[in-house]
């Protein structure tokens, strides 16, 4: 009885090991075609009036921006497709953001989907946008910008709560990026 039990245990262990190895192999395979990490931030672009500029001098500042980061990307794997998703809100916009880079098979082709929903759950004009993922880890295509429309009331609220005296909002963008400069800023936010 004890001998049979020992044999069963060995057999069970072997099956478990096999299953574990298969799972590891499957997981590694899935991860190998998971899109690269990316991050998203909202940029509130502004300039500042220089009230004391003399005639003939430039009377506005160079453009600059305040930024609010969206949560870090997470991996989602289902039915043979692998995706990285960023989802969330920022403090100064009444919108929900959903950004997904997905690969539907084991080919190199990826899709980038960007959606911005208002407080009633409806996509903003011009969204969702779906395209072949144009992002690369380095070079001049490591980031992509999506202009976010804002109402006059939202604009005024941003200027009142986020900007300083004499500063005015020029436009708002969602930036999606995957280069190291961009990612490091977001990782440092998390720490």
């Amino acid at each position: 009885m004890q001998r049979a039990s020992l044999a069963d245990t060995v057999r069970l262990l072997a099956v478990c090991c096999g299953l574990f190895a298969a799972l590891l192999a499957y997981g590694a395979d899935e991860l190998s075609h998971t899109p690269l990490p990316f991050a998203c931030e909202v940029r509130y672009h502004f300039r500042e009036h220089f009230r004391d500029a003399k005639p003939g001098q430039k009377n506005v500042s160079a453009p600059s921006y305040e930024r609010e980061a969206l949560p870090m990307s997470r991996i989602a794997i289902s039915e043979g497709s692998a995706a990285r998703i960023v989802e969330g809100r920022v403090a100064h916009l009444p919108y929900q953001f959903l950004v997904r880079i997905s690969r539907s098979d084991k080919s190199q082709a990826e899709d980038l989907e960007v959606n911005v929903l208002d407080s009633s759950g409806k996509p903003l004009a011009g969204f969702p946008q779906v395209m072949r993922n144009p992002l690369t880890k380095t070079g001049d295509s490591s980031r992509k910008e999506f202009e976010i429309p804002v109402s006059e009331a939202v604009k005024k609220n941003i200027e009142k709560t986020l900007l300083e005296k004499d500063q005015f909002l020029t436009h708002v963008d969602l930036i999606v990026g995957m280069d190291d400069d961009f990612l490091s800023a977001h990782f440092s936010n998390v720490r």
Partner: protein
Amino acid sequence: MSRIIGTIHGSDIVEENDGSVTFSAGATLDGDGANGQFGGDPCYAPSSYSGGTLDVIGNAGHPGNWFGVVTDTGEETGKPIVQGAGDPCPGAYVSATSLHLPGRDGKPLPRSSPFKYVDSATVPFIAVPPMIIKGVAGIVMGCRVVVTNTKNGKKTEAVVADGGPSNHLGEISVACAKAIGVSTGGPHPANSGGADSPDIHYQLFPGVAAVVNGVTYSLQHS
């Protein structure tokens, strides 16, 4: 003895014993002043323009409120100057820097001249807040700067050529970003590029005229 001129977002701006001014910050990209002077992209252009631009038109303004480009009246309510056939980027707008360049004869150029301004696409320059311009004895606009990316050790000579907002430190031209290996991002580098981590070290030499790409810049009172 060194002294702290001020602090912006936790970064001290220090006037050192030798009179230089140092601080560390990130790097926002400033495309202003790019008018194709040396074959690069202009900063701003109307939608009918077929080439690329360094920045999106939202940072220049819109009809009735052109705050980011040179207008015919010099007021924001005027019409943007559009470069003509004899200019470096026909069809593009004229974008300005605070630092003005003279003509070949040494005389001031008209406001509408694309060559009056420092080209962000090809000249490494930085923009600084009024706190620095007003906070030191030496003239800052046109002075020498050394910009170092401490992440990769790359450094470049640059010139102070523009004024930044009062509460922001660390703003550089697109050419400066390329010189020190800061990401220029997407199709409009001045809009989506830059680095937010405070890894860029800036050392300014107020009162010392910058020499960049073989060009000596004039110091300009602000």
